[in-house]
């Protein structure tokens, strides 16, 4: 019935710091199909990293998943036993982290770090794993892979370390890849290379990919679908072209307007969104964007808007907003 690889329902994650509880993720639901690439977009602190890392339970120790169903290939990852969970993490789901400088263990050789997963999950022998690791290094574009297996992370540049991270993430040929802001810590030219690499890998390996980024420009031309997050909520979900051509949520609209464009029909003013994201100390009982939204009406302050479809025949374009921006009328 579904070819949904991952189906997340009502995920809620909170952080406890001494007595303060921070609601980072406030009940989001989304899914991803096999072979699909999903972009998760939003500003810093909106909960995009936390929500995706919650899927594989890699949130910081002060965080707990309060609620939700995380169905991966039909199994609820929150309910399966430890052993099964470990055989999924790293094996069927690979993760690429944000900062390649700190994400590799400086005390261990690169070869060990890549082959670990292979040895444990795929039961390869050390030699086989090393051979495969060299192949992986070649795949991600590192020259002299065999020699470099014996080197340490500090002997690699930032961009190359990120390639190593990617090699680690894809080593067991996962069904799903979660890329948490893979290029944010790199400079622009390297960024382009890494994104190119991810693009290539995607077509070669047919993996589903979740690409988390705060950079809207990055997802254009890369992903199939996009979800936009704000303050721990998903506010809009659409196919990528729909999102750019026909953004519905006021936040999305502002985001798009604030992308600097080199060329354009009119040199539009670079808009910044006034105000700042709210402190997540309470789960808001109203639309989280209301304080900054210029379309806000009374209803926006009374209840959190649910996600509703705005596309004619399917659910492909959904938005969580009480206001239909065209008519300014409550839908």
């Amino acid at each position, binding site marked *: 019935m579904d070819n949904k690889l991952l189906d997340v329902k009502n995920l809620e994650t909170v952080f406890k710091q001494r007595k303060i509880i921070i609601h980072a993720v406030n009940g989001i639901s989304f899914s991803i199909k096999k072979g699909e690439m999903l972009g998760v977009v939003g500003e810093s602190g909106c909960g995009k990293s936390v929500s995706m890392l919650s899927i*594989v339970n*890699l949130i910081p120790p002060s965080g707990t998943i309060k609620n939700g169903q995380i169905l991966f290939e039909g199994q609820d990852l929150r309910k399966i036993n430890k052993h099964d*969970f*470990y*055989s*999924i*993490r*790293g*094996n069927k789901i*690979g*993760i690429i*982290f944000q*900062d390649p400088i*700190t*994400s*590799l*263990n*400086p*005390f*261990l050789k690169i070869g*060990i770090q890549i082959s*670990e*997963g292979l040895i*444990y*999950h795929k039961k390869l022998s050390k030699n086989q794993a090393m051979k495969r690791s060299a192949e992986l290094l070649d795949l991600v574009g590192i020259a002299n892979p065999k020699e470099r297996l014996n080197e*340490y992370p*500090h002997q690699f540049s930032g961009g190359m370390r990120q390639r190593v*991270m990617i090699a*680690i*993430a894809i080593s067991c040929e996962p069904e799903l890849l979660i890329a948490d802001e893979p290029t944010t810590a790199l400079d622009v030219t390297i960024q382009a290379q890494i994104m190119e690499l991810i693009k290539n890998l995607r077509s070669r390996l047919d993996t589903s990919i979740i690409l988390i980024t705060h950079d809207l420009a990055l997802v254009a031309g890369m992903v199939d679908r996009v979800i936009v997050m704000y303050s721990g909520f998903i506010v809009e979900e659409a196919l990528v072209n729909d999102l750019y051509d026909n953004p519905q949520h006021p936040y999305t609209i502002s985001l798009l307007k604030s992308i600097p464009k080199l060329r354009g029909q009119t040199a539009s003013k670079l808009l910044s969104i006034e105000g700042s994201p709210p402190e997540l100390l309470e789960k808001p009982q109203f639309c989280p964007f209301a304080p900054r939204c210029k379309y806000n009406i009374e209803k926006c302050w009374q209840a959190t808007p649910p996600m509703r479809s705005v596309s004619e025949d399917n659910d492909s374009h959904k938005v969580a907003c009480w206001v239909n921006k065209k008519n300014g009328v409550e839908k």
Partner: protein
Amino acid sequence: MWKYLGNRLLRWIPTVLIVLLVVYALVFFGAGDPIRLIFLRAPGDIAYNPERVEAMREAAGLNKPFLVQFWNYISHLVQGDFGNSLLTGRSVGSMIAKAFPITLQMGLAAGVFITIIGTILGIIAALNHNQWVDNIISGFAMGVWGVPVFVSGPLLMIFFVKVVRIMDVPYGWHGIFSTRTILPLLVMTITPMALVIRQARSALLQVLSEDYIRTARSKGIPNIQILTRHMLKPILSPVVSQVGLIMIAILNNAVLLETVFGIPGVGNLAVDSITTSDYPVILALVFIGSTVVLMSNLMVDLVLPILDPRALARKEETD
């Protein structure tokens, strides 16, 4: 690598030479004429005959200029001759040979305990961060850190022998495995162990929050493997780098400890020789002491790059 080693050894020689020179000069110009001291200490009524003193001094070469005497000393040293004790007349080498093994045994036993138990306690404390186990271990480590051996030793001695009455008077040397050695060993271990506990604990806490541990977890490998493969080296690395400090602490402790418990080791020898201005012994001990410390620093420099690959890169830069 060997070049690096040779480099360090070469640096060590002038350092020790200078230390010896300084100490020699101090003793030479300060402590007083050794021959006269011998006379002053000699029992009975040996007449203080200035001519005899002068003759003895001449014979012992004490009228030669400072540098000449120093040079003589060094040339003998290189051949392994430490000279003879002014007090007992015996060869310094033999005195040290008798005392050294005792201190060595205590030092090694203490060192082993300190490292193993200290690291384990530190790890336990870190794993139970801020809970009662951690608070007890950390509090204990913090508390005993400053208390000197000659305070904790006697206090514990009073406690165990008089108050609780479970052991005999721990005085003198009865071998490393005697029950009477337990207390001195315990006292010797406590203070440096506090250092190790704190190092191991802070290292583990640091490691646990590192991104690369998150990466390791993301691979789905079991926690045991993460502990042994990913965490061990980052924890041991700072502990090992403190070995030099630990050695100095043990040496200092040995001196005081042996006085308290009457153990005839190197420490006791040192105190005796200093209070009696027996300067061949003093010099020999200073030489050995500095050598031990410098050697252990050298070993740390060798071991550290094995544990931490970044260390080698740094070393090559700075040398």
